[in-house]
């Protein structure tokens, strides 16, 4: 018999993709039987630039440009690593403010992911609604940091801006609005029949595979693998502000969406606690010296675990900055999930991974 399969490309440029990534699906009819991926379109060479072009105190702003969505987590992870190497401590207030921005970032990133998943599932109205409501969060971010996307908020020793009392009130106001909306989305995601056709049981990752492929972030938590770096680290005050790990069992798109929705609610709760219980003190401490030694810092980005390995040699230039981004380590798991699915679902599945290719390729 002759050939039977067709090759369907998804990317590099495709309407359902925000970033260039290339999947080549080998399909029987529309059923995917083979996946070939190419993730290197956005490779710019940041790791090298961090050790050759920029001094250590500027690197925090450079690594933020790795990814617009999780810029803050990149700069945080790097800054913490640098502070470790310098042997410095930040004040409690700075730590709280950092956490506030991180969680706001998580909220808007998750909302973007949810809306994009809906868009790719052909639910335009939901996309518009979530994108519209996301502006509430963007507004707070702009008020706090001065920019909508690339904040440059965190610096070595603390943060760059303080929040005022009115701003605190505004934050609480907007968060309450968002919380109300999120409850509505939850209702929609749970009860809309066409969404359940599109999401339930589609693109599922079993718990076994989650362990095998070292799944991380919402992908792992949706499959029932209890892993969240916020639970496994000590340099941010998550224990005090009411962090709860959100779990689902089934591992499909629906479960991932539910994990994200639950996390948004938890993050709103945490932000509220931060604003209400913000400690007094300075937002920035002066730190002197040059980084020396090596360290590993992990942090939970919206997409999962982010890791920085930084090695200093006592001069202004670093020896090595190794960035392991969440999407990077999930790619093998992605390919596994696509097998056996319909091509029609592929964009929605891909969006539900919330892939961040500019993170991956650096």
């Amino acid at each position: 018999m002759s050939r039977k399969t067709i090759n369907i490309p998804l990317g590099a440029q495709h309407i359902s993709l925000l970033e260039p990534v290339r999947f080549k699906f080998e399909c029987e009819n529309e059923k995917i039987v083979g996946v070939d991926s190419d993730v290197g379109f956005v490779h710019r060479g940041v790791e090298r630039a961090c050790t050759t072009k920029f001094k250590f105190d500027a690197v925090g702003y450079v690594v933020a440009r790795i990814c617009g969505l999780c810029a803050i987590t990149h700069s945080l992870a790097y800054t913490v690593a640098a502070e470790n190497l310098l042997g410095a401590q930040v004040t409690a207030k700075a730590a709280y403010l950092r956490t506030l921005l991180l969680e706001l970032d998580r909220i808007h990133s998750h909302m973007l992911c949810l809306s994009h998943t809906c868009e790719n599932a052909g639910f335009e109205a939901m996309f518009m609604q979530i994108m519209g409501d996301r502006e509430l969060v963007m507004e707070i971010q702009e008020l706090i940091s001065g920019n909508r996307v690339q904040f440059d908020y965190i610096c070595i020793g603390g943060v760059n801006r303080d929040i005022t009392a009115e701003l605190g009130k505004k934050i609480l106001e907007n968060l309450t609005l968002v919380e109300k909306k999120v409850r509505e989305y939850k209702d929609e995601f749970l009860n809309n029949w066409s969404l359940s056709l599109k999401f339930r049981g589609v693109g599922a990752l079993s718990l076994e595979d989650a362990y095998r492929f070292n799944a991380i972030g919402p992908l792992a938590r949706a499959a029932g693998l209890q892993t969240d770096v916020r639970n496994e680290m000590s340099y941010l005050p998550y224990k005090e502000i009411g962090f709860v790990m959100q779990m689902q069992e089934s591992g499909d798109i629906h479960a991932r969406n539910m994990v994200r929705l639950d996390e948004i609610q938890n993050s709103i709760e945490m932000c509220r606690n931060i604003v209400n219980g913000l400690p007094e003190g300075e937002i920035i401490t002066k730190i002197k010296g040059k980084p020396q030694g090596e360290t590993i810092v992990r942090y939970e980005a919206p997409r999962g675990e982010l890791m920085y390995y930084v090695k200093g040699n006592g001069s202004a230039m670093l020896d090595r900055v190794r960035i392991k981004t969440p999407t990077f380590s999930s790619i093998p798991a992605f390919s596994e999930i696509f097998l056996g699915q319909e091509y029609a679902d592929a964009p929605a599945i891909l969006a539900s991974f919330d892939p961040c290719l500019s993170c991956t390729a650096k």
Partner: protein
Amino acid sequence: MFRKFRKKSPWILHYNAGSCNGCDIEILACISPKYDLERFGVINTGNPKQSDIFLVTGPVTFRSRERLVELYTQMPEPKVVVAVGSCTCTGGVFRDMYNVEDGIDRYIPVDVYVPGCAASPELIIDGVVKALEVLEKKTKAMEKPRKLFSEATTKEGIVDRRECAQKVGEADAKDTE
């Protein structure tokens, strides 16, 4: 006669040539209800063959440059290229990194530069509206491919866009005479 309608129905094609996706999510935000680009008749087609405005973000990486040019050539004239974000205009923070080509105007002619890291939705909309004006003024003569390929490199093998643009202007002046 039809030219004035170009302005009223710009369809956009968006390509990320290696940006940090900050600008991309802002483009997405432009479509959202708060900014609503569709007021201007904008549709995000995602298909080069049916687009008029090419929104590019990112400091063209080594691997995406071929795709960039390929997409550009598939768009029918008249078309306008908008470079969104600082790194798209000049390479920005990524300038001189080993896998980066320092801005898209080395490869395709850019009509509107939108600065910002990340460019905010207001700026992007402003850029698109500027692009509409350019779109209306475009003539066939401006679109000749010589702009792209002929005499486009200097000795070091680097395109000097400004010089090329001047040359094209001269040629047009001759054409009209």
